[in-house]
């Protein structure tokens, strides 16, 4: 049992420390015992109690105990154990409990001591931005390695087809889409078809994305009615598909409308595509207030419908495509006269283009291995025939591959939200030169007439404004409460350092 010998001084001192609890309660006896047992190298037995008494008197006079600190600093054996505690609180309170039983001289210096320890907190326990940058670089490198090891081998390039036009929300939508595409690890070619001809605003937005962009002008103006718009967009997409066919671009064709929200998983999932695939889209469009229905009725119809309508392939239990989930717009009071910019969000058609992905070789004139259930692109779309969805390209729709765990994963969310018809925005969203005098407007710009269609004004607009104001008040109050709570927590934590 030779290992138990060196334990004695530690044992006694640590027992004393453990039993004491607060240091203020430890008595002179304990102090003397610790001094004796600690093998401090100063002469005589009378000296120690005398000094101790002197220190006690001095402490009583000064108001705090410093005896232990002095002994530790001046008389302790060299070197004090590495467990000396650092405190970030300045030396105001009672003597810091820097008392650990000094290490026994027999034990090796690497011994870890049992007993009370302080808690080391550095003076500025807040993150350093350079460090955050380094951590993010490490994360990026690890994820890149994971992709190399477990991800898709030989990734195919992606051709993204986006119809757009210059309007208020274009900057919002295109920037979001550009950022999504910038995160994709595969080579991307972005074909942007712009209605109304090429504009500088669009070109500026696209240039900022630093992607490979092909900016295609389409020299007709975007129509105002939602129903016309769907057909128009189909024609714009066909225009882009014809370019892919002419230039024989290689890759997977994805129809990304500028206002949609794409998940990064989408780009990983489509890599396994062979010819044509279908994926599930979530529809975010039906919760808008139309002009005809009052709000309460709207909410009731919402509850009857499913929480999020999804458009996409339907599979049977063995994973084969058996049909399609489509969007039913009847219960939502679809009004033929809805125009873009009346405050409501748009409604989708039966099968949106965004839910389909093609292999670009399907569009080429002569591609090897092109299956015979595909029609040639030249036969479709010319001569008055319209393409409503990419399914029109196929003779037999049963060959479509369902993507994303047979349509169970929603990889894409469809949304059409446009600003009001009379909204104004500065060109390029830059106010240049900055205005010298800013005067608040006397009234909101509601007076202008819409294009071609008469306005139907209701009381719902004023109600909307009032609700927004009241919500703001509530949130600021709750913020104040959470601040108080945080202060209490900090007090509790700081207690141990100073005892």
């Amino acid at each position: 049992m030779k290992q138990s010998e060196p334990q004695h001084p530690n044992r006694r001192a640590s027992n004393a420390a453990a039993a004491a609890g607060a240091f203020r309660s430890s008595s002179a006896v304990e102090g003397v015992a610790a001094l004796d047992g600690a093998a401090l190298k100063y002469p005589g037995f009378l000296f120690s109690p005398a000094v101790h008494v002197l220190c006690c008197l001095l402490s009583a006079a000064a108001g705090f105990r410093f005896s232990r600190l002095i002994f530790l600093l001046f008389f302790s054996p060299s070197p004090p154990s590495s467990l000396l505690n650092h405190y970030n609180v300045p030396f105001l309170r009672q003597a810091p409990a820097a008392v650990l039983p000094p290490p026994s001289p027999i034990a090796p210096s690497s011994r870890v001591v049992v007993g009370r320890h302080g808690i080391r907190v550095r003076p500025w326990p807040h993150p350093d931005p350079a460090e955050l940058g380094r951590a993010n670089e490490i994360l990026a490198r690890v994820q890149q390695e994971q992709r190399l090891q477990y991800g898709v081998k030989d990734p195919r390039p992606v051709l993204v087809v986006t119809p757009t036009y210059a309007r208020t929300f274009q900057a919002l939508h295109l920037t979001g889409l550009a950022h999504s595409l910038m995160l994709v690890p595969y080579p991307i070619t972005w074909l942007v078809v712009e209605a109304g001809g090429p504009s500088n605003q669009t070109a500026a937005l696209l240039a900022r994305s630093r992607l490979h962009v092909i900016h295609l002008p389409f020299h007709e103006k975007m129509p105002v009615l939602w129903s016309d718009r769907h057909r128009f967009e189909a024609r714009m997409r066909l225009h882009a598909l014809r370019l892919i066919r002419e230039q024989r671009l290689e890759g997977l064709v994805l129809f990304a409308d500028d206002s949609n929200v794409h998940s990064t998983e989408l780009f990983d999932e489509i890599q396994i595509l062979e010819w044509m695939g279908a994926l599930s889209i979530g529809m975010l469009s039906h919760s808008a207030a139309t002009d005809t229905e009052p709000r309460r009725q709207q909410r009731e119809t919402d509850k009857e419908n499913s929480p999020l309508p999804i458009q996409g392939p339907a599979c049977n239990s063995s994973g084969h495509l058996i049909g399609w989930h489509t969007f039913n717009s009847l219960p939502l009071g679809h009004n033929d006269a809805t125009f873009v910019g009346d405050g409501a969000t748009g409604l989708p058609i039966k099968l949106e283009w965004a839910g389909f992905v093609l292999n670009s070789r399907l569009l080429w004139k002569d591609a090897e291995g092109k299956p015979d259930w595909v029609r040639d692109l030249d036969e479709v779309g010319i001569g008055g025939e319209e393409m409503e969805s990419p399914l029109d390209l196929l003779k037999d729709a049963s060959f479509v591959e369902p993507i994303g765990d047979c349509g169970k994963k929603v990889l894409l969310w469809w949304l059409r939200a446009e600003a009001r018809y009379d909204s104004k925005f500065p060109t390029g969203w830059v106010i240049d030169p900055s205005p010298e005098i800013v005067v608040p407007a006397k009234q909101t710009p509601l007076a202008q007439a819409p294009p071609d269609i008469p306005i139907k004004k209701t009381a719902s607009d004023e109600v909307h404004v009032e609700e927004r104001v009241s919500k703001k008040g509530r949130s600021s109050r709750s913020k104040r409460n959470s601040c108080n709570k945080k202060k209490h927590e900090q007090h509790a934590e700081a207690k141990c350092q100073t005892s």
Partner: protein
Amino acid sequence: MEKWIRLRVCAIFIHCLLLLEAKLKIEGTAGDVLEDDPVGRLKVFVYVLPSKYNEDMIKKDPRCLSHMFAAEVFMHRFLLTSPVRTLDPEKADWFYVPIYPTCDLTKEGLPLPFRSPKMMRSAIQEIASNWPYWNRTEGADHFFVVPHDFGACFHYQEEIAIERGILPLLQRATLVQTFGQKNHVCLKDGSIVIPPYASPQRMHAHLLPPDIPRSIFIYFRGLLHDGINDPEGCQYARGARASLWLNFKNNPIFDISTEHPTTYYEDMQRAIFCLCPLGWAPWSPRLVETVIFGCIPVIIADNIVLPFADAIPWEDIAVFVAEKDIPKLDTILTTIPAEVILRKQKLLANPSMKQAMSFSQPSKPGDAFHQILNGLARKLPHDSSVYLKPGEKVLNWTAGPVTDLYPW
């Protein structure tokens, strides 16, 4: 001609490089021994003790089969059906005593160590009186599995465990324990440090596909402040866990908290570094979970001895941080070069590494049971000092606290 020779040389060179890159072998100080097969290298005799020492305790409280100390139970069950078992004690190299000292649980499931020394003493008396093999060597060729907090010191409080020391009767036996700390009373020379038990079925049920990107930098879930046993917070974990919280609770690269989420295992698989700080004892099943889920363990426990340290090169796999360096932990971890991190992850992904840390049922080659047997085999052949001359006595049967001498 010359061009072809050059091409061929290049091809061979690249091929060799690829082979070297692919072969990330795990070699500890004992060499490449993780895949050693113990069958044929040793023979173990399993004593048959009355069921009050083993089976009855499980019947009384079946939680003993799933808590972190369950290694003692499963080692017994493994040995009973293992090919290393011999029914002839004369041929045996090692003798195993099937006793479950950590199976005396409170209502909350924590083991009470107060009766364990008496239980151990009673079992040794039983085998010493019924078989001659204990007295032949005074236990030097016997091994016991003692997975409690401080091993055979049989107490959960470190001060009292140090005071008690290892049970005097086990002074010569080999101890297979989870506790390991250098220069500590409760770890004697020649002990085999093993990982604590973590249910392999539960862990495999939560495995994610490896292509899920790792997006958490540093992860930790566990007690940071033991309010019941150490309200002031100065003793638990030698202040290490409290220091972690106070320094890094606002740091966005640290995801540390006391809450136990249902996605705990999944989150570990999405993290690069998982902290393994000491608690009341330096070891924890967290290390096993970290290794199985491929997260690099950051060991914050001074002088700890990790399981199977002679077979597993922990310095190459884990990151060791001294307790005094906790305030600089963020700097330490962000300045590790990315290649080092990738190499550690590759070593962790090695299936033999994961297998060595788990107590799989049924037993698979290379798992923790086999590593224990390998460790025992490496201690063979026994030194001649193991066998005592007739009449020689080394152990003091009356040593230790008086309460230990009472009957169980």
